[in-house]
Each structure stands twice: as structure tokens, then as C-alpha cells.
């Protein structure tokens, strides 16, 4: 059991940074994962727009949502 100030060194500290709760996540891995997620997100949004989901969102949002206000 270490004290509050006694922070153990993780594998990722080899490149100079503590990261992710001690998990060995390098900056390159992280940037790639983020970029991949961002690319997937853009694909999701475009596909959702193509399916017409924005219209469902708009239709729900421009009317009073009875569930939201506790009446539905």
C-alpha cells in the first residue's frame, strides 16, 4: 500500500509520461485510436443523416416532450 505521494511508475513512463491508470498507452497508440474513433464517428453521422435520423431528432425536439417534463 503506497502513500498518496508515492506514485508507482507505469510502463508508459519510459517515454516520459504517466498515462491511463498505469496502462502502457503510448502517445502514438492514443492518437491512432482517437483518429480511428473520429473517422468512425464521421461515418456514423453521415450514415445516420442518410437514413433520415436528423428528421426524427428534429421532430422530437420541436414538440414538448411530455416524458421529459414528467407527464408522459
Amino acid at each position: 500500500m503506497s502513500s498518496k505521494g508515492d506514485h508507482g511508475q507505469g510502463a508508459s513512463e519510459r517515454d516520459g509520461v504517466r498515462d491511463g491508470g498505469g496502462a502502457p498507452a503510448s502517445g502514438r497508440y492514443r492518437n491512432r485510436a482517437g483518429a480511428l474513433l473520429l473517422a468512425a464517428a464521421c461515418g456514423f453521422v453521415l450514415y445516420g443523416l442518410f437514413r433520415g435520423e436528423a428528421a426524427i431528432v428534429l421532430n422530437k425536439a420541436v414538440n414538448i416532450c411530455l416524458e421529459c417534463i414528467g407527464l408522459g
Partner: protein
Amino acid sequence: MKMKHALRRKLVQIAAFGFSNIHLTNFRGGRIYQGKWKQFCNPGLNCYSCPAAGLSCPIGALQAVGGSMNFQFSFYVAGFLLAVGALFGRAVCGWVCPFGLFQELLHKIPSPKWKLPGWMRYLKYGILLVFVILLPVAATDYMGMGKPAFCQFICPAGTLEGGLPLLGTHPELRQSIGALFFLKAAVLVITLGGCVFAYRFFCRVMCPLGAIYGLMNRVSFFRLEVDPSKCINCGKCARECGMEVDPVRTPDCAECIRCGDCARACPAGAIRLGFGRRYSGKKG
């Protein structure tokens, strides 16, 4: 410098609050904005039935599409949340969420301050799974339409921002008040009370949006970094953190809202918050 950071974050929060609720005149008369901007989601939690709201609530939108007749999953909203999460992680909670700012203001009310048991942080993942993802899809009527269960049974933001102003201005709606409203009112009272005693009680225990963004803290481009060559292991950062995170041990903890209070407290300047390259360890 310290005041500068705190003031900067507060100004960003106030600006985001104002942008999210730009149609203030709608409170008079209890109308809601019905323009095309509502097809876009707000990054933070802000009920779309709030008279002042100019954008959609992403959690409400996720349930609305999931519970619709045609679709069971919203790629549009999920993609939006993934994109925001990949860019900013849970910084959204700390910097632009309107309900987050409201909770911080509530916590300034003088009172005993509590720490929350660690297990409570996991409740929000259960709420996300059951009320936001499963129930709107699984509990459907004869037409195959589901209801937004999180909005219906839990969301205190909806009760506060949408329910109270609309019920206050629409007598015909008040006639429909029943057990469901009192359930939601009770959740609201518990949440508001919790926020007075525990820092960002709703964020940490109940918010499904925070749960989604928190999971992406590990890969988000906006990040918190600790330079071990500068860190003097004093523990001030962990003591300063309202979310009860130790940024040195777990800088990418799902609870971290990237507020930067730890970086502000660090006497050695070892903590950095922002985009861009990681510390090299050589520059000191």
C-alpha cells in the same frame, strides 16, 4: 494565474450555458424553440423541452431515434457523441455542460461537504445501459415505438429546465400531473440536494452522457498529462480534485472532467491540460 484559470473556465461555462439556452424570451408564454437548429445536438446535457434551448439533448435524441418505429439505434447521435468524445473526452462536462455549471453553483452553497463512496460512480453506467439503450428499444408499444425511459423516469434536467417552466405557464398541462411527475420531482430534489453536499453529484452518479464521454478520456485528443520529471509527489493535485481523481496515478480516469484544477494546484507545474504533443521527458 490561479484566478485567471478559474475565471476562464467559468466564463467558458457561462458562454456555453448562454449558447445552449439562447431563446430566453420563450420562458415568457412557455413556448419552445421550433427551428431547424434543433436537429443538431448539444454536446452537454440540456433538455430540448427547455423553452430557451436552441439545440437537442443528445441523450434524449439517442432515445428518440432508438425508440422510433424505423430504427433501433441512432448512428447520427452516436456518431456525434463519439466525435465529441474523441476530441474532448469528458472536458465537455467540465467546460460546456449547462447542467454541470448549475451543479457547481449549487455546491457553493455553504454546507457540510461529502465524499461519495467509490461504487456510486458505476451507477451511471447501469443507467446508460438500462434506461438509455435497452428500455427505449425493448419496451415498445403495439406500433413498435419505445419511450425515452431516462427522460421519463430519471432526468432531473428535464424536470428542472422543461417541466417546471412549462407547467408554470400551461394550466392545461398542470391538470395532467400524476405519480410520474412526483417521481421525477423526487429525483430532482434528491439530485439538487446531492449537488449541494457532494461536488457534481449528478455527473458522478447518474449522468449517462458523462458515462459515455468518460469512457473516451483514454483516447481523446484533449488530455491531461503529468510530467514525471517535474512531479514532486506532493499529492496536492489529488486533494484539490473535486471529482476525487488522483491525476498522477490515473490521468485518464473516466471521472476526470478536465477542469484543470489539478494543474492549477500543482506547485511544480508538472500537469498539463490541452491538445498536442505529450511531454518528451527531456525538456523538463
